[in-house]
């Protein structure tokens, strides 16, 4: 069953143009100019229960805008979006009880209250039964190793501790649609892993739909089975992570350690149909097209058998591949 459907979803922001310099700013007092920014353009996709979707894109690509439209915070300028049978922007209470948002850069909790008081407040507004509330809060705080902090005021917690509390708060009412905007920002490696595990288990148990945006690509790789790649507000890729990597990962790397990197060795390496190579000391890193990897590998072994100390084929980590594709804007 399709639980999220968007069709030609677009959002345009009207933003005043701030002129540089005093004279120009003064001129702006009498005539204000605006520019229109297409944050999201004609985006169409569907999601089903159990989907764990990573949204990838550089800063300003439109990731957060997309998430805000999906959870009803902002209205689309055009197009349509249906989440769980509801139009998010109508903000029906029944819809809002199905949704949860964690934005790492903006606290969802009241900083003047303790985490426990925040949880109690959420219990009350989401009408969570007492038993479910106690079980969920206890289980999550134990898993995230923050049970001893629940009586502390949110403003007195460290950044990482606050993020943990945000995650607990987001799951208190067991939402069916979970939107996470940079959920592991500022967390240590162990906490990142705990959060990923909790989220992964949560989605598996409850059949929830998960949307994650993160510049920590391990979040995407560990959590998501599908990715949306956005560039300049436009959806460039929508599909499985493995398929994405297979499609875009066209080269492999061969690393060779030699006794001494002589000109003869350099000449041989350069003549083996490589894409790119790098000589650092006695290490040679060679980029080869995937289709020629066996041929090149065999040729190198034959020609350099007496010089090679060690040779290995390195497949790029998915995170590195994603990073490279995003930075170089190769996803078209």
């Amino acid at each position, binding site marked *: 069953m399709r639980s999220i459907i968007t069709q030609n979803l677009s959002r345009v*922001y009207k933003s*005043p143009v701030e002129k540089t310099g005093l004279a120009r700013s003064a001129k702006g007092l009498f005539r204000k100019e605006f520019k229109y920014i297409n944050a999201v353009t004609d985006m169409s996709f569907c999601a089903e229960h159990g989907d764990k979707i990573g949204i990838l894109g550089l800063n300003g690509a439109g990731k*957060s805008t997309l998430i*805000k439209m999906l*959870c*009803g*915070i*902002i*209205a689309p300028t055009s197009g349509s979006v249906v989440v769980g049978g509801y139009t998010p*922007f109508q*903000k029906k*209470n029944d819809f*809002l*009880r199905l*949704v*949860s*948002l964690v*934005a790492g*850069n*903006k*606290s*969802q909790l*009241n900083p*003047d*209250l303790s985490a426990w*008081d925040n949880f*109690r*407040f*959420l219990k*009350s*507004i*989401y009408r969570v039964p007492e038993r479910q509330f106690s079980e969920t809060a206890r289980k999550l705080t134990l898993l995230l190793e923050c049970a001893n902090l629940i009586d502390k*005021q949110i403003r007195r917690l460290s950044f990482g501790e606050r993020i943990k509390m945000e995650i607990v708060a987001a799951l208190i009412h067991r939402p069916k649609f979970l939107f996470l*905007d940079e959920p592991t920002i500022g967390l240590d490696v162990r906490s990142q892993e705990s959060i990923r595990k909790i989220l992964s288990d949560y989605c598996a148990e409850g059949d929830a739909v998960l949307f994650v945006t993160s510049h920590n690509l391990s979040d995407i790789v560990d959590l998501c089975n599908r990715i949306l790649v956005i560039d300049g507000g436009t959806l460039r890729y929508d599909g499985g992570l493995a398929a994405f990597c297979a499609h875009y990962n066209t080269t492999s790397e061969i690393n060779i350690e030699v006794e001494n990197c002589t000109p003869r060795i350099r000449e041989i390496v350069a003549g083996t149909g490589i894409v790119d190579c790098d000589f650092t000391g006695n290490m040679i890193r060679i980029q080869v097209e995937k289709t020629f990897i066996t041929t090149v590998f065999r040729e190198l072994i034959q020609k350099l058998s007496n010089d090679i100390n060690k040779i290995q084929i390195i497949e790029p980590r998915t995170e590195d591949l994603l990073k490279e594709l995003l930075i170089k804007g190769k996803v078209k």
Partner: protein
Amino acid sequence: MISIFLLEGKKLLSYKFQLVFSLLHPLFGFLVQYYLWGALYATQYASGMSYSDDQMFTYYAVASILFVMIKTNSGMIANEFKNGLLDNELVRPINLIKYRLWRSISERCLYTVFYLAMLFLLVAALKISAFGDISLIHLVSFVVFTILSFLISFFLDFITGLLAMAIDEVWAVQAILSFIVNFISGYYIPLLLFPGHIEAIFQFTPFYYLFYFPAQIFTLSRIDQSIMKPLLIALFWVFALVIMSNGICKRLSNGYSSYAG
């Protein structure tokens, strides 16, 4: 709603110094008026005044209590709108207006309890014979009009805060509006001291019911006159402001951009 009420109270009690010190503003305001009018009543210029000195002190004491009871911070929505901090409320099953209303009720209840204690100590220390002959009917009328006054103040402040939809920075607008409202609502000077036609005009505005009319109930036993007309006008303004707030709130959602990530 009860949870909002209780949690807001708990939050305020976490900052006891802030609570007490913020109450010094109306308390000092009352002291200034007390000495100012005390000095004036000691001269011959006060002979034609509509109030006796005790009535004047009572007026300012009640006005300062009303200041604490009705001054909400619902206008803070301007900051939340500007900085994109409304996300928390927009993504939760909370009514923007009710949520703020209950928080303000809790906040004002707590502030009022503390302020009354402080003011009564001050009044006793200054040996002012304020609040002398208060009948039950005066008290009930005062409570009813104070509730209406609180609601008018809350919604006026809220609507002013919503100006952030049109202009980015509303702090100065809020400050000047607050000053004007305080002036024409009789917080600084009782409207009875203005020319008669001014009071006659002002009674059709919502501001008249913020400070002046409730304070008059204590000061001049205003309840002896017909209460129906002011009650109906005050109720009209409450309903009008509720409808306006709801309408603007819906537009707010459309105009909200949730900046900053």
